[in-house]
């Protein structure tokens, strides 16, 4: 991108598309968007202190936020700003058109081109991580094993047949098929392995089953076996910020037998302690709403958890989980601690939390955050590209400065 020189001979007038391209790829737009992004970041930093991070991000950087008025210490600043998502999107367009397509090609500009491409790669990495990464947690007491992680947010409906006291043939209805089933909307889920199908509706993202004898329904909610689902606002943490992972989703279901007979409504709730049980043809089935369990390709056994503090202080020095990773017939000893997660088979296990089982036993448990991020290493690769590009640019300029002999010898 170079500014047009005033000495350039008169050119035929640019087409409308050409002018739009010039604007979208220009330095002017880049400067304005960078300044806007700076202002948004600055206001968002100040505002999050008052209203919390979640609401601030929603206000400043959510795609549904087109314009906003910043607020400092509860007072509105009369400065309308465009939403950060759209400023960022336009900046990406400007970066691509100006920094990659329009930029002059050649050795002199190679560094800039590489750096811009690296930034685009970094932004793409952020987008991929945002849309395609999965997160869950695995809590393990010392000496115990697990091969599943629990999703932080997604509630699913699980239907299973109980054989010898254990669930078999578990059928999982994913959250994405449930969340749109608000009151009055039902969906029939076919369960070929079971002697029945399941109709689900009335999904609520945070609700509790309440007995009608305890509290009368407020607005004609469906009643199932003397209970109805009472919707609740999203859970919040101590700072008043939404804590969506603490929500307990719920919905209504009806068993649809093979002859088309529908049962009376049943309640499936994340807040229930036990699954709903039904009998068909002498077989026992359970229906449950719970957070999605995420099967791991290996089993993890927590051998020992160590919480180490700097001597004589309450300042943490190390939190160490010593685990055995069991896979097929092989076992490997691994240590997971702060700054040293376990990366294996596309999954990363981070040391997230810990606690003691009970005040007397002294037995500890460890909580791992489990992440699958297809773009896990991309920011690192993009950093190499950007660093290389900037180094080429700046060192070229610096070399030119030295070569020009512009250093003053002596006055």
């Amino acid at each position, binding site marked *: 991108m170079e500014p047009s020189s005033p000495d350039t001979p008169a050119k035929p007038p640019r087409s409308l598309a050409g002018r739009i391209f010039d604007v979208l790829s220009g330095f002017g737009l880049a*400067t304005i968007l960078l300044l806007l992004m700076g202002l948004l970041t600055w206001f968002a930093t100040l505002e999050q202190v008052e209203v919390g991070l979640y609401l601030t991000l929603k206000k400043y950087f959510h795609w549904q936020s087109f314009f906003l008025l910043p607020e400092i210490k509860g007072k509105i600043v009369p400065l309308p700003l465009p939403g950060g998502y759209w400023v960022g999107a336009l900046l990406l367009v400007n970066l691509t058109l100006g920094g990659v397509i329009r930029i002059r090609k050649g050795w002199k500009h190679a560094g800039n081109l590489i750096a811009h491409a690296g930034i685009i790669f970094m932004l793409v990495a952020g987008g991929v991580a945002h849309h395609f990464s999965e997160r869950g947690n695995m809590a393990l007491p010392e000496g115990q094993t697990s091969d599943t992680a629990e999703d932080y947010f997604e509630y699913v409906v699980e239907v299973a047949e109980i054989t010898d006291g254990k669930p078999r043939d578990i059928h999982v209805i994913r959250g994405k098929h449930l969340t749109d089933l608000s009151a009055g909307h039902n969906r029939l889920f076919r369960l070929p392995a079971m002697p029945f199908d399941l109709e689900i509706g009335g999904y609520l993202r945070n609700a509790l089953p309440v007995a009608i004898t305890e509290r009368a329904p407020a607005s004609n909610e469906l009643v199932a076996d003397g209970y109805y689902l009472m919707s609740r606002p999203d859970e919040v943490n101590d700072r008043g910020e939404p804590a969506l992972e603490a929500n307990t989703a719920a919905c209504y279901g009806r068993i649809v037998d093979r002859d088309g007979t529908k049962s009376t409504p049943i309640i499936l709730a994340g807040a229930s302690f036990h699954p709903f049980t039904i009998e068909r043809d002498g077989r026992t089935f359970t229906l449950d709403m719970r957070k999605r369990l995420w099967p791991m390709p290996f089993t993890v056994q927590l051998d020992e958890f160590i919480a180490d503090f700097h001597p004589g202080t309450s300042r943490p020095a190390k939190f160490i989980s010593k685990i055995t990773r069991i896979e097929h017939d092989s076992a490997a000893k691994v240590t997971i601690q702060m700054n040293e997660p376990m990366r294996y088979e596309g999954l990363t296990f981070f040391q997230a939390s810990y606690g003691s089982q009970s005040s007397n036993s002294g037995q500890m448990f460890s909580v791992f955050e489990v992440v699958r991020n297809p773009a896990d290493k991309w920011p690192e690769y993009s950093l190499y590209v950007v660093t290389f590009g900037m180094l080429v640019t700046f060192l070229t300029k610096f070399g030119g400065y030295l070569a020009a002999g512009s250093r003053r010898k002596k006055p």
Partner: protein
Amino acid sequence: MTATRPSTGRWIAAVLAAAGLATVFYNLLMDNMPKGEVREVENYTPWSAETLRTAAPLPIQDGGRIKPLSTYAGFTMLRLHGARSMKIEDGKGKEYKLKPTEWLLDILFRPQLAIHQPTFRIDNSAAIEAIGIEPRGKRDRYSYADLSAGREKLGELAQTYSGIDSKERDPMQTQVLDLASNLRAYEGLLGWFSFARNGVTLAGSSENGAPDKRAEISSLMMVAETLQQQLEESRAAGRGIPEGLQNLLQQVLDAANYAKNELFILPPSDRSQDQWKSAGNVIMDTMQGKSKEPETYIADIQLLETTARSLGGGEATFRENLAKLRDRLTQRAADRGEAKSVSLEVAYYQRNWFLNALVFFLIGTLATMAMWTFGYNRAGLISAWITTAATAAGLIYCLIAITKRCIIMQRPPVGNLYDTIIFIGTTVVLLALIVEWLTRRRFALGIAPILGTALIVLSRRFELGDGADHMDPLVAVLDSNFWLTTHVITITLGYSAGLLAAFLSSAYILLRGLDLDGGDRDLRRSFTRAVYGMICVTLFLSLVGTVLGGIWANYSWGRFWGWDPKENGALLICIWTLAILHARLGGYIREWGLHLSSIFTAVIVTFSWWHVNFLGVGLHNYGFTAGKNTIWAFYAAMAVILAAGFVAMAVEKNRRAPQSQAAATD
């Protein structure tokens, strides 16, 4: 600088600079020297230098690491007294300046003198009034004896105020809580050796009307097993504990409690135990039969008793015993593979590297004023050489100090806010000297010692306010030498480059605005190139540092970006420098615009480096207030410079307009 004779403009600039410096030092002086006369401590005699040298390297476990007693004394004194020295007078007109180790030795071994020393710094006299004591001044220092009448009331108030959320407390409540905490720590030291000084009274042991006999705690520790047996036999027989025994055990318990909470100087021989013991710990462990190495600890207590009591026999004997104690404990620490850097640390604080660097930078600053005032003549040249030599000496002192700190801490140089100040102070001087080497125009040379002075002064103020030992180990999440070396150092270097760019531009505004450069276009171009280069360096370091931080977060927690204020601050520097470079490439800003934008970089760097710490994470209350005021003062100064820049730009454009018109008419 042009080769002109000293002009009025230069003298105006020099006077302005001198006034600025005087303001800085006046504030510094006022901050460090609260009002109040030198206090009298009757019959005070100073410790000999040899005794102080003996005591200083005694190893102690504090703040999660092993450090010399002198360091512990320094930071305890800083926290309680607000300074590392104290002036007293002996009642006969002779004044003494007490340093931390002397002050601590007085508390431990001569409490009768220590309680009259003005140890407690009070910045809010309302707190003193609240505990029922007549205040001496708005800000003053009080002795333990002064405060003892309000001790009970202080405890009551502290209990009440501790229930108030820290963000909701007013300054008086905060001061009361601090004072209560400081007083508790002081009492823990004051009574620490009382077990050694007093021993225990054997009730009913008097003969012929003489007072009851006394026994040493160590003697009781030797017969702890027998005493335990007596206790068990009494219990088994259903008898109560014999009165004499109960009295004895109560005295031991009291003595142990006084010596329990401070001064962890006894390393266990057992390497698997990482926590060192205080005298109170080992007395109780041995008396209860819980100690794994009672013989070692009995010998320790005996030596502590001997040392404390030997002071009555003269300082030489005391010193001899203190040396034995030090050697015994140092050897045991060495056997555990600890206390390797204790001697180095003693020397580090004795040499006072940063204070010496400050002196050199000050000389450099004064020489700079002369250099800029005289211009390019012989006097200017001499001043330039003095500036170079003094700045280089200051830089070397800083580099040595930072290297020594790294060896002592066993980690890279930057791990907390204090580290960033001294690191930025050092690297900004280094960068300025590199710019000077490249430009040879004496403007970066002059800025180097000024920035060095300002940042070392800032580091001292911060240390004073924070009152914490910044060499203590880091929390688990920061415990990664790789990331501290890559991410933290890169981003901190970015701050240095940004600040240097801003101050170079400030100098440019001053120079061009006051016409000190005589219209020297070559000089202006040189300035502009230097600033442009520094902005490029700022962008490079900040961008790489910010992304490295994201990679660290992704590596450790599985998320690249969390919109944390510190992350946002770093992003703001990247965005701002990118905006400057794009605006310049697009021709939207030229020389004036570049320099005015560059000055604003200092505001953004300060927000990122310093201000975000106040948004949610609290520092120590003194540091908090002092730091916050400093930030606003800095923002105001930058606003003034920016405003001056805009005015100067407008004036110059107005002056040029008629000339252009005239030229056009011609």
